[in-house]
């Protein structure tokens, strides 16, 4: 299955990855190969198999509605590359 350059661009955009033109070309080849490899799975007869999304076989793992102390403000912000007024700072995004 051959991925077009536009498809690679779309996937890169969804993954928030900036790609150079050279990378777009390279990844379109690499991703196509990966898809071909995974395509092999389509040969397996699965019409009678239930899809599995979770391999633990568990269900209804829940907790009671109780609180425990959170991180301190300093701890919470300690990894932030930029902060301002005790908040995480990022480049402006459109709103309103």
């Amino acid at each position, binding site marked *: 299955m051959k991925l077009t350059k536009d498809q690679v661009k779309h996937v890169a955009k969804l993954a928030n990855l900036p790609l150079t033109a050279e990378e777009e070309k390279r990844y379109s080849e690499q991703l196509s190969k990966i898809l071909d490899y995974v395509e092999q799975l389509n040969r397996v007869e699965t019409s009678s198999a239930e899809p599995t*999304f979770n391999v633990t076989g*568990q269900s209804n793992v829940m907790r*009671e509605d*109780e609180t*425990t102390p959170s991180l301190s403000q300093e701890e919470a912000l300690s990894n932030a590359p930029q902060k301002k007024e005790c908040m995480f700072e990022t480049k402006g995004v459109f709103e309103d």
Partner: protein
Amino acid sequence: MKQMYEPIIGLEVHVELNTKSKMFCRCSADYFGKEPNTYTCPVCLGLPGALPLINKAAIEDCIKIGLALNCKISEKSLFERKNYFYPDLPKGYQISQYRWPLCINGQITLDSGQVIRINRVHQEEDTGKLSHLGGVTLIDFNRSGVPLVEIVTEPDFHDVASVRDYAKKLQQLFRYLEVSNADMERGDMRLEANISVHPIAIASKASPWRLPDYRVELKNINSFRFIVAAIEYEIKRQIEALEKREKLTQETRGWNEDKKCTFLQRSKEEAHDYRYFPEPDLPELRIEESRVKSLESSLPELPWDKLKRFAEEYGISKNDAQILSETKELAEFFESALEHGKKHGVSIKEVANYIVNRKPDISSVLPTQIIEELKGKKVGIIESEKELEKLAEQAVKENANAVLDYKKGKEAALQVLIGGVMKLSLGKADIAKLKPILEKLLKS
């Protein structure tokens, strides 16, 4: 003949649950007005390796909402990752539900009798809160991971009055169920509408009805008034565009309250591709029949059932029943007063009228107190026509000038006489009943 158009509207309501802790971690969910970034942990900050753990109370609240809306509760339910990049979303995805929502296929009946179909009621988590300051965006993650329930209708609304009624009913329901304070201004409850208009075929009824091939999404509106205004504006805008033979497209619009108009936020080309997939960190939910039954039996009497019962059982008007069942607290106050009233010969009607007309502050007045009042021992209202007539005659005697003025055609003079009666009765006269008595007396 003028072409007529029919609006087609679907609604999505988000409601924040009032659980103690967040949806997938044990941070407090009571974030409103707190210092920024003081209610966070590795899970709700999306730090690598952190694992979510489902809050049982939130799941139960979601099912309760579904049951109250006559939904089918799914035997198997799964969380999924909704992937997109936005600074308010620390993990790069929101844990939500897509193909296996907790509740499906419900319905609710509006005051008009119209039935609105509920497509789904599902559980998800809220995002962080953004603020914009001089070109940069600041993030507070206290709200990140707070349990959020989304209720999606089929596109069954055709007018704004129904939208308003529906939203009000949901708000009332959330409060009855005590699953949320549903305060719109605080953002506990948020509304989104999908709107399109379609030309009604006048010539023939033969052409099959189908949904328009576009819809406009109105997002994140936090007041009943704004949603009504935004939908009204949108219907007008779309009809005008269709009249001009313009092609309408899929887009997301917001509401500008200052300019009183909707504005484009995102067009179709930028539409999101969320790539939902089952959340591998959360095992599936299996909701047993017995669990559903026990949750169902834990539901309080629902507002619309209470309204119906009040009207039928107590023989009061539908309007009064609506007022008296507005909140669970007022309904309880009313019924407690009724019970007390019964022992003291105070009728249902007297109690209902008192509460509807005088709107006692139920946080400071006891139901027994209003019965005492109604017994007339203290400051009871004078409703007896005989007594009112006597007072009216007295007032007419004492205000000869006002009587003359009234007979000359000065309607306002009636107020002077009403004031006279109020003075004589120490403010206890029932004005509504007094007025016709006075008028009759003056005309004789």
